C-alpha cells in the first residue's frame, strides 16, 4: 500500500516542480496563511485524482496485486501523508519569507483540507469522468468566495452561536472540531470504499 502512496510522487514529478512557485505566488500575494496551507495540501491529492478518474488507471491498479480496499485506503491515507508534507514545506517557505503564522493557522488549514477532501472524494466515484476535476475546482473557488459573506452573515445574525463559540474554551473547541472532522473523513472513506467495491472497469 505504501507503493500506492509513493506512486503519486512518480506520477507527479513535473507538477511537483510547480508546487514551490505555486506556493510562493500565494505567499508573495500576501494571502492569509490558512489559505496557503489549504491550497498547498490540496495540490498533490487532487492532482492524483485527476489521473485516477481515468478508466485506464483503474484497470491498471485493479489488475496489479492490490485489493480495492487498499486502493481507496491509499487515497485517504495518502491525502493525510501529503497534507503533512505539504504543510511542512509551506511552513519552511513562510519562515524563509519571514511571514508570520501560528499553529492554529496550520490546524485550521489542515482541518479545512480534510473536510474538503472528505466531501469531494466520494464525488469522484459518482460523477462522470472528465467532468469531476472541473466540478471540484469550480466548487472550491466558489466555496472560498462565498465563505466570507457567510462568515459575515453569521457574525451579524447568529450571535448565539458566536457566543457559544466564544464561551467554549479553545481546547474544547479544537478537540470537538478535530473529532467532527475525523468523523466526517471516516464516513467519507466508508462511502467511497463501498462505491468502489461495486465498480465495473
Amino acid at each position, binding site marked *: 500500500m505504501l*507503493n500506492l502512496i*509513493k*506512486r503519486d510522487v*512518480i*506520477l507527479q*514529478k513535473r507538477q511537483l516542480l510547480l508546487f514551490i512557485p505555486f506556493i510562493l505566488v500565494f505567499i508573495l500575494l500576501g494571502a492569509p496563511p490558512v489559505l496557503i496551507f489549504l491550497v498547498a495540501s490540496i495540490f498533490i491529492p487532487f492532482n492524483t485524482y485527476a*489521473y485516477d478518474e481515468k478508466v*485506464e*488507471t483503474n*484497470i*491498471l491498479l*485493479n*489488475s*496489479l*496485486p*492490490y*485489493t480495492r480496499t487498499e486502493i481507496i485506503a491509499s487515497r485517504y491515507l495518502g491525502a493525510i501523508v501529503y497534507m503533512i508534507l505539504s504543510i511542512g514545506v509551506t511552513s519552511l517557505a513562510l519562515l524563509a519569507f519571514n511571514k508570520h503564522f501560528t499553529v492554529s493557522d496550520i490546524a485550521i488549514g489542515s482541518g479545512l483540507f480534510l473536510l474538503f477532501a472528505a466531501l469531494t472524494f466520494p464525488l469522484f466515484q459518482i460523477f462522470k469522468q472528465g467532468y469531476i476535476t472541473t466540478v471540484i475546482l469550480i466548487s472550491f473557488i466558489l466555496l472560498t468566495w462565498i465563505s466570507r459573506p457567510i462568515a459575515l452573515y453569521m457574525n451579524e445574525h447568529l450571535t448565539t452561536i458566536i457566543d457559544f463559540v466564544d464561551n467554549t474554551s479553545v481546547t474544547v473547541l479544537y478537540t470537538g472540531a478535530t473529532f467532527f472532522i475525523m468523523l466526517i473523513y471516516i464516513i467519507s472513506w466508508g462511502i467511497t470504499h463501498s462505491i468502489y467495491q*461495486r465498480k*465495473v*472497469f
Partner: protein
Amino acid sequence: MENVVELKNVTKRFKGFSVNHINLQVKRGFVTGFIGANGAGKSTTIKTMMNLLRPDAGEVKLFGLDYKTHEKEIKQRIGFVYDGNIFFEGLNLKDIKRIVAPAYKRWDDTIFYQYVEQFELPLNKAIKTFSKGMQMKASLAIALSHQAELIIMDEPTAGLDPIFRRELLDLLQELMVDGNRTIFFSTHITTDLDRIADYIAFIQKGELVFNQSIHDVAENYALVKGELNLLDRDTEKAFVHVHRASTGFEALTDNIKAAKNIFGDTVIIERASLEDIMYYFKGGIHHA
C-alpha cells in the same frame, strides 16, 4: 491441479448485453485461444477473470483460489496485457516500471531490461509517443517480468502489423517452453491461433459455444458442400447452419459422422477453419 482458471456458471448482465452461464476451464501449461466476434463477450469474460468486474452469479476461481479471500495471491501470479494502453500516457517506461514493479514480489529487473532491449523500447520517452506495436511490446515486457504463471491477454494482436504479430506469436511460443506457464488470449484474428493454440474457447452472443482442443475442433467440425436438392428438413439437422447459393449449399456440421452417414459420397466434406466455424455460428444454431 489441472485448471488454472475455472469459471462456473458465470453470469453478468449489463444494459442490453449479457454473458450467460459461462463454464470455462483453462488448462495449466497450454495456450488457450479465446475467439468470438466483436461484442460476443470476450472482454467481459476476461474482466471477470481479472476481477475487474464481479459476476452477478457464478463462481470464479484462479489457481483454485477465490478472489474474495486471495485476491493479491492470485494477481501476483498473473501477467496481463490489454487491447489499449492502460499505463499513464505522460510517463516514460522507466517511471511506469517504477510504479508497477514494487507491486510484485517476484519482479525481476534483469528480465525486464532484457525484454526492453529485445523489443528495442525507449526507456525515456513518454508512452503516448509509442506506436500501437510499441505500446503492446511495453505491456508485454511488464507482464513478463514478474514470473507470472498465467498470462491473460485481451486482443493482443489487434492493430498490429503482420510482422510484429508473427514475432509476438513466436515469443509466446518460446514462453511456453516452461511447461508450467499458461496463456489465455482473446482474438478475432483466427489465423493467430492455428499457429500456437492448444485449446480453443469460442464465445458467441454471451454464451460459450465450445472449449475444445484444437485437434478436437478439427475432428468435430467440417464444411459440407453439395447440391441443393440434398437438403430437406431431416438432412439439415446435421448442420449448425446452412448457406445456400444458386450453385449449391455449403454448411457447417458439428457431427461429421452423422453427415457422412446421411450424405455418403454425394457431398464434399472439408476441414473447417476457425473462421468458417465463427462465420457459420453467427447465423445461429438451427438444430436442436
